[in-house]
């Protein structure tokens, strides 16, 4: 509940001596504010370090590039985030992007107008998501890993079959526009990401459905007992994850002016990593949509910097691994320090 920390004490009798805000120690408070800003801090640190390493890093053009490069991971990671919130996993997102883009390209070549092509891609993504969700829930599968692994394989096979193994060039102009610069030097895709983030954020925060997702992730059996339609909540997150994959396909299609069965290679690992770097837990019910976004951008920033620094691929793999560990360990440290500072602050005030 979005209330101030000490409202609770007004209920019944004061159970604890709540710290009074005005007594806060300035130094500590500042440190605490910094520390509790979370993954953002780690991202900021990363950016500072990188801007020293490469003169190109902080140029407007490069920042715009980074946003364009992370657009797909970002959108898909947000869907993945919802799935992980319910203790699930969606391995099919990458293939789903590929299939949706191929289906979109085919429909364009069959003469569909731009809006229809977009609708077809998004619907195709959502359909794969629906299959995941429905099989998982109503097929009583023990874990979504299996069904999403199966659709990973099936969607990839279908995409290859439909496209006859090749990329299909050509996309309506409205979609291509997403890859071009739009406003403030930013590509159109960035605004799509922002839009999706805003909508999902609003839905998760203000709608009953959002509350249910946390309940289902927190304790599925209790959610059932409380009469929450657990099955449908679960189906819904897979549909939305698929939908996000569909939107990812649109963005990628705009960026490449094509649909391709090779799209989305290893996207499942990237998006899951983004979500986990962002601080969600596989045990469900914990995590914040915005952090998943930051996780995605962090991955994009690292990749971009390695390219700028002209690091060889072999070495890139090593560096990416090391940086991911450092990023997560910094977050662990940050969390620990935050806890310590809070206790110190409480101690001084009491």
């Amino acid at each position, binding site marked *: 509940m979005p209330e101030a920390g000490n409202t609770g004490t007004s209920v019944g009798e004061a159970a604890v001596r709540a710290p009074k805000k005005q007594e806060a120690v300035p130094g500590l408070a500042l440190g605490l504010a910094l520390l509790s800003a979370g993954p953002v801090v780690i991202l900021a640190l990363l950016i500072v370090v990188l801007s020293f390493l490469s003169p190109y890093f902080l140029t407007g053009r*490069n920042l715009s590039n980074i946003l364009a*490069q992370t657009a797909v991971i970002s959108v898909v990671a947000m869907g993945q985030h919802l799935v992980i919130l319910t203790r699930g996993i969606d391995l099919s997102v990458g293939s789903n992007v590929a299939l949706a883009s191929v289906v979109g390209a085919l429909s364009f070549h069959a003469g569909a107008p731009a809006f229809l092509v977009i609708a077809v891609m998004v619907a195709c993504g959502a359909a794969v998501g629906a299959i995941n969700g429905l099989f998982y829930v109503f097929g009583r599968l023990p874990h979504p890993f299996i069904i999403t692994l199966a659709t990973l394989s099936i969607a990839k096979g279908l995409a290859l079959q439909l496209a006859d*193994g090749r990329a299909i*060039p050509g996309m309506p102009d409205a979609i291509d526009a997403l890859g071009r610069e739009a406003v403030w030097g930013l590509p159109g895709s960035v605004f799509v990401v922002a839009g999706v983030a805003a909508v999902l954020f609003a839905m998760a925060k203000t709608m009953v459905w959002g509350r249910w997702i946390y309940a289902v992730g927190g304790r599925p059996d209790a959610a059932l007992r409380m009469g929450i339609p657990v099955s449908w909540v679960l189906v819904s997150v897979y549909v939305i994850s698929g939908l996000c994959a569909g939107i990812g396909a649109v963005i990628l299609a705009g960026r*490449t002016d*094509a649909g391709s069965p090779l*799209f989305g290679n290893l996207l499942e690992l990237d998006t899951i990593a983004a979500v986990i770097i962002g601080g969600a837990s596989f045990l469900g019910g914990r995590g914040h949509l915005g952090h998943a976004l930051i996780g995605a951008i962090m991955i994009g920033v690292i990749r971009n910097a390695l*390219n*700028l620094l002209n690091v060889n691929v072999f070495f890139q793999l090593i560096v990416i691994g090391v940086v991911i560990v450092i990023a997560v360990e910094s977050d662990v440290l940050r969390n620990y320090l935050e806890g310590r500072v809070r206790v110190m602050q409480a101690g001084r005030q009491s």
Partner: protein
Amino acid sequence: ADKIKVGLITKFPVPFYSTMEDAAKKYAAAHPEVQLVTGQGQAATDIEGQIALIESMITQGVKGLAITPVDPTVAPTLDKAVAAGIKVVLVDNGIPDWKGQTALVSTNNLNGGKIAGEYLKTVLKSGDKIGILQGVPGVPALDDRVTGMMEGLGDVKVEVVGKGATNCTLELGTSVTEDILTANPDLKAIYAACGPPIPGAVKSISNAGIGNDKIILVGFDACCGEIEAIKSGAEDASVAQFPAKMGELGIDTVVKAIRGEPVEANVDTGAGLVTLQNVKDFE
């Protein structure tokens, strides 16, 4: 003096592209006025990785770019490079219907496949059974090698009884060969669209107790243990492309284009068949 900054982007870490990169670096070392920036994707299908590489090359202000494009999906990003005044030279394979390039430095994979097909035509007859070890599903350059081979066979109508994706890896080369041999004891030939699976195929054939001379094994790339296999007689032939030549000529073409010198639109780096007879020349 102002250095000429050029970029080279290759597909992914396999010996073929490493050789290409090495040759380009050697070229740069011999030409001090050329500053070379290299980049490589992570997998044969790493479209987004390649796009990101092109974008950072643009950011770094290269004047020219030699690239082995994954597939047509990178065209719009290359358009951006062209719009930024960068000379783009495609290496190894082209992009159908894309006109932005200054030149194309390649052997045609289709033609390479034809060379293999023509060789097979001399040793097979209509009705013979053949198995195919495909590369990575969906990678056009690799698919072309299979298509080309079938074309090369011409009027010899062989029966393709087994086709499996190896992702150009040793381990899948082994398994897929095993299974094709199991299902087709009367198999006459195996054709592989890339080099890495070949040693696996050789091992499977010998494990199955089939003599060297019973099955014709033809590969592509002449790399990754193929030379040894040809020398031992386990492999009968392989199509060699010349990645070093591609790397060198690719960069050379870019540099010339930047200097405003005239360049050929199509630079053919050629392909050849490696057999026991000429294997010495390829070591």
